[in-house]
């Protein structure tokens, strides 16, 4: 049972983590990002589309389409993030409103395109792109460790990908000049500007990266939850990722902790319910846990919870 909890917990936590990292990139630069939900969905859409096209042309038996689908998802998410960039960074619109609208557009746009593409290119009436089931593997040696070995058992390749990308993202955020500029823009854009940093450029890149990272999460869910892309991808995991990053106080490592907590709470809840023979409907109660915990955290520790100082503020150079 512990094995299942660890395996399922990680499978759920890691995609959410990379989405949350995406959210952190945007929010640390000062742009509120409720668009994670839409970004992950749109990314999953482009990834699934490329996967389907490649499977049709290359046939089965190769892992290339699988990896290409993540590249395509990331690119699609980055491209789609430009909508948020245009609304918030270019047009100085309200960032919350923009996030909501970007999500609504993502849902309608991907549903429309999926149907249309299915009809025009594959001659079928369907709102889904059926994906190949992802392979899973055991990490040699490590999977043999008692108990903890489960973390290395029955691993989706995307879990490795996510960890690698997250490490790179962490490095970019905390060790490179760009990361330093990004965090400065979220705290005091005027200071960044005075230091010769192009605030709008930094934020544009941050939101675009946010789109790419969210998309990797969305694509992972498309593989792990349903092995297809359909409007069901908009289950609200993007919003859960936002809860995770708030819980993690806008820092990457604590956010990983939050995601693991959410993931294991979910998987152990499910396991317990199964074990006790309770009806599966109880899973829905388990699912409220991350939200309840985050809300309670905010109630009791709101003093220690510090969002980036300039978060959501419109930065207009003319205004001083």
């Amino acid at each position, binding site marked *: 049972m512990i094995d299942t909890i660890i395996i399922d917990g990680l499978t759920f936590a890691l995609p959410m983590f990379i989405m949350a990292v995406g959210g952190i990139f945007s929010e640390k630069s000062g742009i509120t990002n409720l668009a994670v939900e839409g970004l992950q969905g749109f990314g999953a859409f482009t990834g699934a589309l490329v996967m389907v096209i490649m499977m049709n042309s290359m046939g089965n038996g190769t892992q290339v389409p699988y990896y290409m689908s993540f590249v395509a998802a990331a690119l699609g998410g980055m491209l789609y993030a430009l909508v948020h960039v245009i609304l918030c960074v270019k047009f100085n*619109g309200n960032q919350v409103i*923009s996030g909501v609208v970007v999500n609504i*557009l993502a*849902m309608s746009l991907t549903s429309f395109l999926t149907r249309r593409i299915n*009809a025009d290119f594959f001659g079928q009436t369907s709102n889904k792109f059926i994906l190949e089931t992802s392979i899973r593997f055991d990490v040699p040696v490590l999977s043999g460790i008692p108990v903890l070995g489960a973390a290395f058992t029955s691993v989706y390749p995307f879990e490795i990908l996510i960890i690698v990308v997250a490490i790179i993202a962490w490095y970019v955020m905390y060790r490179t000049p760009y990361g330093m500029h990004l965090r400065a823009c979220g705290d005091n854009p005027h200071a960044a500007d005075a230091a010769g940093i192009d605030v709008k450029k930094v934020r544009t890149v941050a939101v675009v990266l946010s789109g790419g990272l969210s998309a990797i999460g969305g694509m992972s869910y498309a593989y792990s939850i349903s092995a297809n892309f359909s409007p069901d991808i908009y289950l609200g995991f993007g919003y859960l990722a936002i809860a995770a990053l708030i819980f993690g106080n806008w820092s990457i490592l604590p956010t990983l902790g939050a995601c693991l907590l959410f993931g294991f709470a979910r998987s152990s809840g499910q396991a317990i319910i199964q074990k006790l023979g309770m009806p599966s409907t109880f899973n829905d109660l388990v699912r409220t846990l991350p939200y309840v915990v985050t809300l309670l955290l905010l109630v009791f520790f709101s003093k220690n919870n510090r969002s980036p100082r300039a978060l959501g503020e419109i930065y207009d150079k003319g205004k001083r």
Partner: protein
Amino acid sequence: MKKYMVKLLGGEKHQMLRISLFAIVVSLIFGVVVLLIIGNNPFASYLNLLQGSGLAPKRSYAGRKNMFTDFMNLLDALTPMIFASLAVTVALKGGLFNIGVSGMMLAAGFAATVTVGYSSLFAGAAKPLVLIIGIISGALVGALIGWLKYRFNINEVVSSIMLNYILMYVFTFFINSYYVDPVSRQSTNINDAARLTIVDFKAFGLKFDIPLAFPLAIIVAILIRFIMDKTTIGFEIKAVGLSRTAANYAGISIGRNIMLTMILSGALAGLAGVTYFCGYVGSIQPGVVPSMGFNAIAVALLGCSEPIGCIYASFLITIISNGSIYMSSQQGVEIEIADLITAFILIFSACSEYIRMYVSKAAMELNTAGEKKGGAQA
């Protein structure tokens, strides 16, 4: 180009209205382009939207149906949308962003369904009770969000998102455990006595739905406008919304008004919830946060955050979503295109502030250019 934009959208008078209309027109043009690309006749498609909404006659009707039937159906869908967008509007006036309309709707719908909806009360008592329970449950959720905001300084956007999902999962659990209809996988339909829409009412040889709460929606919109513009309650709420520090300095209680705003907004969202779940639909789909709560944000923006504007904006958005079924059956076009056009209207209305700034800047440039020219001639 600049000149025409300024002419069209410049000046203070009804500027927001004109910009909203501009957003709509541009989006509809965009829809034309999309429809052309996918090989459909855009005008026939738009006509279908009107026909499907009962605003234009269809070529043929099924038995006991005509244009009026479709129109009543439109009003049925319109009613909750008006309430929902009013909920967003009231919050915006108070400087708050109510993204929790969905959760409030669910709370109201669920509370009314399991209490009155499944009871054997007679219609005369059940229907008002549904409304009252809706108002109270929505207001309670609103009060919670308001309280978290002013007592713990928790951003209302964040707490609303959390509450949306908490409520959704909790209700999903109860519905799936106790109230599920094994065929539809939704909650069991509520009793007709409690339902705010009279379904399949037979008269004049027709069979149609009567949204009983529609007149209430209009009255409430007018009432909200009155409260906001003509009473000291609205005066305080708007002052707090425009500047918390200045309102506080003037002796207006911030906490009280944040609570009041969220309670009012929640009550309206509650009305949206009951008119939707206990009226238009009659049941609750588990596992889903109703998208109307999010669409309402955009509808409120499109309606220039004004109560009366919400009526018009809701009307437009509902025509598109309601008429799309007929359009898709007639044109063989994907039903999703309606959502797509709606989404584009929302995107453009989200840009309204930018358009306003752009126009006033362009107007200034044109003015100074004009002055220079005039100076050179003199």
